[in-house]
């Protein structure tokens, strides 16, 4: 589904070039659950940004379902994004919209008919366990619930891929584990999940594929990986 071929990414120019990623090669198959681990600045987030085309690689190719997205046009970008759901450490919920409206928003901007929105949103909120918080505003619910709402928003247009960048970074261990279990459940239902984290316990408990990064390079890629740096 996703393939990185000799990907290099640098920031800055002239004497101030900082290399974020170098010589990155890997493949992610459909319905896989892959965790990227590493210290801050190892390049986890950069890899995720390259996948949802927030950044473009300096050199190399990134294939998504066989098409090269490293040269995607700004016109095509929204359509690429609609195939992907994104979840972030800071949830990125709209503070002036309720949980229901936040989730519906993802469908509205993609031009879904209103009838379908009214059907899908409660369904997806039921899956993440927020049926009783539909009318609440983000500041009225807990961090774990906010992240569930964000996952619901990422899922509601049924993307083939979920990208989660440190989704548990702001949560206590119990809420964090709840989020990870939710991601595992989503994965079981057939969605590819790419997770970036530096939480050792989570990685060790998930027992899925782990790609370890250090200073912009892949140093380990194990199919039943553990957190080891």
């Amino acid at each position: 589904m996703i393939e990185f071929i000799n990907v290099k990414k640098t920031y800055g120019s002239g004497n101030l070039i900082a290399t974020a990623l170098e010589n990155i090669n890997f493949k992610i198959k459909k319905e896989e659950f892959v965790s990227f681990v590493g210290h801050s600045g190892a390049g986890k987030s950069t890899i995720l940004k390259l996948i949802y085309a927030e950044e473009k690689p300096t050199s190399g190719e990134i294939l998504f379902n066989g098409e090269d997205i490293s040269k995607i046009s700004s016109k095509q970008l929204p359509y690429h994004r609609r195939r992907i759901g994104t979840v972030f450490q800071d949830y990125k919920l709209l503070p002036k919209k309720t949980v229901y409206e936040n989730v519906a928003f993802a469908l509205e901007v993609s031009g879904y008919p209103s009838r379908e929105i009214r059907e899908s949103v409660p369904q997806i909120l039921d899956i993440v366990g927020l049926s009783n918080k539909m009318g609440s505003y983000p500041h009225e619910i807990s961090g774990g619930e906010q992240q569930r709402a964000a996952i619901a928003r990422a899922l509601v247009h049924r993307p083939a891929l979920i990208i989660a960048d440190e989704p548990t970074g702001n949560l206590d261990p119990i809420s964090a584990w709840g989020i990870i279990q939710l991601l595992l459940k989503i994965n079981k239902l057939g969605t590819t999940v790419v997770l970036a984290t530096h939480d050792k316990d989570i990685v060790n408990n998930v027992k899925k594929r782990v790609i370890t990064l250090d200073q912009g390079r892949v140093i380990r890629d194990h199919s039943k990986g553990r957190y080891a740096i």
Partner: protein
Amino acid sequence: MFLTISRTLKAGFQNFYRNGSLSVAAVSILTLSLLIISIIIVLTITANLGLKYIQDKIDIRVYFKSDTEESKMINFRSEILKYKEVKSADIVSKDRALSEFKANNSNKPEILKAIEAVEENPLLASVNIKAVDPEKYDVIANSIENSAYKEDIASINYQQYKLVIDRFNSTIQTIRKTGIFLFILFSLIAILITFNVIRMTIFNHGTEIEIMRLVGASNNYIRLPFVFEGIIYGTVAACIAIILLIPMVKVVTPYIIGSAYVNVVQTGFTTYFVLIFLIQLLLGTLLGVISSLLAIRRYLKI
């Protein structure tokens, strides 16, 4: 397409009333700019109307000696009408001059008494000449003074008018020039301030735009709410500006300019009212939309 427009239109209205204080700031700045611009427009229009009004009042009167036969005056008139600078020429007989004089002084009985005391009509017959262009009176007056009729002419009352006409012409020129200058100056200021205020409101929406992009909103879908918001700003500002402008013109003008002129300004204002409002509306929405488009540009880059 319809879905996009209806949803973004709704979002535009929501942005407008949910960001109360910023909307008020943007609208009041825009209103002020429009008001200043339209005051300049009103001044320019009324200056032109005033010019026309006074042009119509200006004429040259050629007074004939009291023993001149009427046929001579008719000849003079037809000759004058051949000049291309002349718009019209009317003969005012002694009797008509007297009745007009009485009508003009009907509220001054002592003057009327004095006129009646004189048995013979003391007024002279005249030919009133109007020029196509007020700057041509010089030429007309000169050629009359050198014509074959100069023996019969008692006087030409052009010289005493000349100063007034000249001064008026130069005032109009000044008003026009400063009007254009002020118009450009204030338009620029208005554009800059409006742009900045709208940029601030869009900056306020930074996270929202980021999220829209992440969930796959097209650039148009992100842009349109702000475009609609700009249109709302412009429309509201234009409405407030015109509402403020009406009392300003009706109440303030009589204090600034002479009462004879007020009628001209106010009838002129009523005639051009729709035009001024349309200009405000167009200018306001254009300003709002262009500022929005410029301000949002940097959020849409990859």
